[in-house]
């Protein structure tokens, strides 16, 4: 644990594998930039590995003012013990106020271990991060400018906002695709600070014998938002609409078995009894009738939005939101509406007047 340090920086753990940055740290830098600006402190990336210096430029272009570079041959592969030691040493040395990690296989191994070692709080899988004030309900103590860590809980049935008022750093993990990545700024540079790695006396308890990674296929189980298409989409070409909507929402693409059988989308994407069972925060199904075998794989989603031309389609029986209409008109309108985020508040007030 470190004391509350109002001058502390905002940190993003720059997860990399074999010298390649995943998208999460870049997404986190975009969010981190906002938070750091609101707090008036620098944004830093923490880059741990071996021969990873070339990544510093990318991190700067995505918003990092500072890059803490911790390089050592021992750090070639991610290992809980070695990475925890380095990250904890960095936190102790520089006392950041916020540390963000991707909620990846590595991030969900490293962040809790670091939080335990530092005896500070950690909020998993945040879907939004804001700066705001907090008043303790018991002591009435008012604390300004804390990190508000917003996350769904209970299978997506509630949204909790968590704060970490006293024992810093304020730590959170965020899933891939949740924060929107801003475009890299070509000329932007940052300052690299080389951190002396000290792993003396560390006898690594684990040895990686084999590591197999396949090119990223669809990860329906981990997706927070899924846009699924059914036979009603009509063709493989028209399925482009489903991909477009999923992309703009940072979600994954799913399909009914009919859509798979018709060749609109690959079997990897099938949701249902003989496909993948999913429980995302939001499941949008377009042109899916809602056969029981399909419902079995998606009805536990926190929110279901059904778009179907047939008002009696069974899918509406499990939906929370419904649009009765032609998906070829509805989806482009949704994409347009999401793009024009600015007009949203009008839309909301407009709707409440209507």
């Amino acid at each position: 644990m470190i004391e509350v340090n109002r001058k502390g920086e905002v940190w993003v753990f720059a997860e990399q594998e074999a010298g390649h940055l995943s998208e999460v740290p870049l997404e986190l830098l975009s969010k981190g930039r906002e938070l750091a600006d609101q707090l008036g402190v620098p944004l830093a990336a923490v880059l741990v590995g071996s021969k990873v210096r070339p990544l510093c430029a990318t991190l700067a272009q995505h918003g990092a003012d500072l890059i803490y570079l911790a390089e050592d041959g021992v750090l070639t592969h991610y290992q809980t013990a070695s990475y925890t030691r380095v990250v904890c040493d960095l936190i102790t040395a520089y006392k950041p106020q916020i540390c963000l990690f991707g909620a990846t296989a590595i991030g969900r191994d490293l962040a809790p271990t670091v939080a335990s070692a530092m005896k500070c709080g950690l909020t998993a899988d945040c879907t939004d991060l804001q700066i705001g004030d907090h008043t303790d309900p018991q002591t009435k103590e008012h604390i300004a400018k804390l990190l508000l860590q917003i996350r769904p809980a209970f299978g997506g049935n509630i949204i909790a906002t968590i704060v970490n008022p006293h024992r810093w750093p304020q730590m959170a993990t965020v899933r891939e695709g949740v924060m929107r990545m801003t475009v890299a700024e070509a000329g932007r540079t940052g300052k690299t600070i080389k951190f002396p790695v000290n792993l003396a006396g560390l006898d690594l308890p684990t040895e990686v014998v084999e590591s197999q990674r396949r090119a990223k296929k669809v990860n329906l189980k981990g997706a927070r938002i899924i846009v699924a298409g059914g036979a009603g989409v009509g063709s493989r070409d028209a399925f482009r609409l489903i991909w477009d909507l999923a992309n703009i929402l940072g979600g994954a693409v799913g399909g009914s078995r009919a859509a798979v059988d018709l060749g609109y989308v690959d079997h990897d994407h099938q949701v249902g009894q003989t496909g993948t069972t999913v429980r995302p925060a939001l499941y949008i199904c377009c042109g899916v009738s809602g056969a029981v075998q399909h419902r079995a794989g998606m009805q536990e989603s926190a929110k279901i939005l059904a778009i179907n031309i047939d008002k009696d389609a069974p899918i509406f029986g499990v939906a929370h939101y419904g649009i009765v209409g032609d998906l070829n008109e509805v989806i482009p309108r949704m994409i347009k509406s999401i793009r024009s985020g600015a007009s949203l508040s009008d839309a909301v007030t407009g709707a409440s007047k209507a």
Partner: protein
Amino acid sequence: MGYSCVVCVKQVPDTKRITGQAMKEDGTVNRAALPAIFNPEDLNALEAALRVRDQHGGTVTVIAMGLPAACDVLRDSLFRGADRAILITDRRAAASDTLATSYILSCAIRKLTPDLVFCGRQAIDGDTAQVGPQLAEKLGYTLVTYLEELELDGRTARVKRNIGNGYERVRSRLPALFTVMETANHPRPPALLKVMKAKKARAPVEIAKAVDGALGASATAEAKAAETAHRCAEMQARKLLITQWNLDDIEADLGWCGGAGSPTKVHRIQSIVLAGGDYKEFPPTEAGIASLIGELIQDHTIG
């Protein structure tokens, strides 16, 4: 020689059946209002431990921290083949976040000095996947997350880990803590003979409650305490007493337990429960769609 195994199991509210009434004013969960189940991946953790014992010998001890009702998952564990069950229950442990929970569990597990600790990868109520790694850190055990296959050879564990976009095979030194994936195994069902035997297993807190009911309001506290002690001894002799520890029994520092030991605090809770079936309809017009998108952004579902 065999391995001594500890499995951490949790009783969780069945998140599939949550309604808005399940939340209390202060933002914590009213667990009493929900059906409670065995956290699914903890069953996989239990199965992994039982297989180690079947293959190499040793013991499997299950630990649950929570309200006395958590005895249900402990009994269920006994039905499936666990050798011993321990309940950690203490009012002062209420409102523990993952850091405080892992601290309390570490104090209990330290008393048992197992070779192997198994946790489910995550619990379906919080989905944080934090307690396993934090418990390993506190115990100083080797952490191996996302276990799918396990082979033991002396003081070395060979594990296949599911890392999402592939797998990794590692060799880790014992003592170790594993977090177990749903894909690791198929949990065995309760065995009839074990159910017949262990269905009467009770923790002291449950026995005290039964005595309270049986002796009624007229009996003195002393009489009740004496009767409870008597029944506990009897259960102990029949090997049906579930071990019960409070924070003093495990020598926990209260400053690291419960609300005091939890750095994270709830700032706000919003319920977003909607009943399926009576869905909210939006017209397929531009305005209708814009108001739907606005609503989804406002409640942080998208955006």
